[in-house]
C-alpha cells in the first residue's frame, strides 16, 4: 500500500469511552452476581452469558481503539491486532445497516442515536475471503462508504434496497466526484513525512 494517496482514519477515543463504560459496568455487574452465587445453574446461565457478552464487547472496543483504517483508490486496509486489506476491484458485497431503537429510528436527526454498520465482503490480494466491518463511530465513515459504493458501481454489484436507501440517507452518492466536501477528521498524510 502506498501512502501517497492514502487517507487514514481511526475510531476517536472519545467516542469509545461510552463503550468502555458499558463493557466495564456490565462485566462488573454480571461478575458480582456470578461470584455471589456460583452454584445456581439459572444464575450461571443468565449472568454468565451476560458477563461474557459484555467482556467480548470490551475486547471489541479495545480492538477499535487500536484500529487504523487506510483508504486508497486501490482498496481499504485495516490494521488492528493484525492487518488485512480488500482491494476495491475484488469487492463482492456491500451492506449498510442501521441499528437503533424505534425512538431513535423515528428521530429527526440522523445522528439522534443508533449507529450504522458497513460490512464489506470480497477477496483479498491472495484470493482469500475477506470481511471488513466498520461502525459509524469511525472518523471518515462516510468516505469509506463512498468508496465502497463507488466500487460496487464499478464492479456492477447489486445493492440491496436497504443499503441503497441508507447510503442515500447519509448523503453518499456514488456518482459524485469526491466522497465529501470536508475531510471529516481524516489524517491525510503528507508523502514527505
Amino acid at each position, binding site marked *: 500500500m502506498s501512502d501517497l494517496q492514502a487517507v487514514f482514519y481511526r475510531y476517536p477515543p472519545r467516542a469509545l469511552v461510552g463503550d468502555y463504560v458499558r463493557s466495564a459496568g456490565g462485566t462488573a455487574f454480571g461478575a458480582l452476581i456470578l461470584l455471589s452465587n456460583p452454584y445456581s445453574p439459572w444464575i450461571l446461565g443468565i449472568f454468565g452469558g451476560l458477563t461474557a457478552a*459484555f467482556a467480548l464487547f470490551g475486547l*471489541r472496543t479495545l480492538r477499535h481503539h487500536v484500529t487504523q483504517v487506510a483508504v486508497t483508490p486501490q482498496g481499504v486496509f485495516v490494521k488492528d491486532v493484525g492487518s488485512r486489506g480488500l482491494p476495491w476491484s475484488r469487492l463482492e458485497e456491500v451492506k449498510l445497516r442501521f*441499528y437503533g*431503537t*424505534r425512538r431513535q*429510528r423515528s428521530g429527526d436527526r*440522523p445522528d439522534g442515536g443508533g449507529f450504522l454498520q458497513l460490512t464489506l465482503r470480497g477477496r483479498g490480494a491472495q484470493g482469500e475471503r475477506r470481511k471488513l466491518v466498520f461502525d459509524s463511530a469511525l472518523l471518515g465513515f462516510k468516505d469509506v462508504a463512498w468508496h465502497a459504493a463507488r466500487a460496487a458501481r464499478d464492479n456492477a454489484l447489486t445493492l440491496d434496497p*436497504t443499503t441503497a436507501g441508507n447510503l442515500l*440517507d447519509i448523503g453518499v452518492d456514488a456518482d459524485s466526484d469526491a466522497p465529501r466536501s470536508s475531510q471529516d477528521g481524516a489524517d491525510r498524510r503528507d508523502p514527505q513525512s
Partner: protein
Amino acid sequence: MLPYIVRRLFVMIPTLLVISAVVFFIIQLPPGDYLETYIAELQAQGESVDQGRIQFLREQYGLDRPMWEQYLTWVWGLLQGDLGYSFEYQLPVSEVIGDRFLLTAIIAVATVIFTYLVAFPIGIYSAVRQYSTGDYVFTFIGYLGLATPNFLLALVMLYFANVWFGTSIGGLMDPELEEAPWSFEKVGSLLEHIWIPMIVIGTAGTAGMIRRLRANLLDELHKQYVVTARAKGLSEGKLIFKYPLRLALNPFIADIGNLLPQIISGAVLVSVVLGLPTNGPLLLRALQSQDMYLAGAFLMFEATLVVVGVMLSDLALAALDPRIRFTGGRRR
C-alpha cells in the same frame, strides 16, 4: 449485531433497577403493612391478637427495618433467584406461584396463536377485498369484538354454555384434577376447558389486530411500488405476500413487547370471572393483602418481560428492517 445487543442490554440493567425501586415503594405506599392488615382481619373476626407474636413476626419478616434496607435485601435476593417469602401463604413465593405460571403461559400462548390464526387471514382479506360484503361483515364483527368487555363476554359464554350444553366451563380443568399430578387425563381436561378463555381473552386482541393489519396493508397497497409490480405482471399472491405484507407486519413485531407481559398478568378480570387458576387473581389478592414479596415478584416479572419484549422487538426490527427513517426529513 453484538454491539447493538450489548448496548440494549446495558440500558436494561438500570431500567430494571429503577423499576424495582418504583415497584417496591409503590407496594409500600398504602399505610401499614401485611401484619397490620392481618391484625385488622383478626380483630374484625373477633379474635384476640398476641402483640408479642406480632412483634416476633415483624422482626422475622424484616418489617421493622428501614424501607431502603428491606428494598436492598429484596433486590439482592431477586438477583440471586430468591423471590422472597409470601406472608399470606407462609411459603416461599416460588412455591406459591407453582403451576400457575405454567397454566398462565399455556393460556397466553394459546390466545396468541388463536389471535394470529384468526386475525391474519381476515385482515389480509379485508384489505385486499376492501369494501366487499365480506370486508363489511368482518369490520362489523371487529367493532363488536373491540367494544365488548372481555369479562362481559366471559359471563355471556358461561351462561350459554350452561344453557345449551349443560356444562360448567369455569376453571381450566375438572375440579377433581386440579390438585392431581400431570397426566393425559389432566391434559385432556385442560384442552377441553381452554377454548373458552382463549376466545374470551383473544377476541379484543383479534379484532384490534384485524383493524390494524387492514389499515397497514391498505396503506402499502396504495403505494407506487405495488402499481409498478402489478404493471410488470407479478402475480397478486406473490406481490402481496412478498412486499406489502412484510412491511405491514412491522408494527406487529414491534408489539412483541406488549405480548410477553400478558403471560404474567393473564387477564385478571377474566380469570376472576371464569375462576381460572392463573397469575392474575393471585396478584390481585397479593396487592389487596399487602403481601409485598409475592406482589413484587409478579410485578418485577411483568416489568422484566416488558423490557425484554421491547428489546426483542427492537432486535427483530433491526434484523428485518435495518433502515434509517427520518420522519421530519426525506424518507419514511
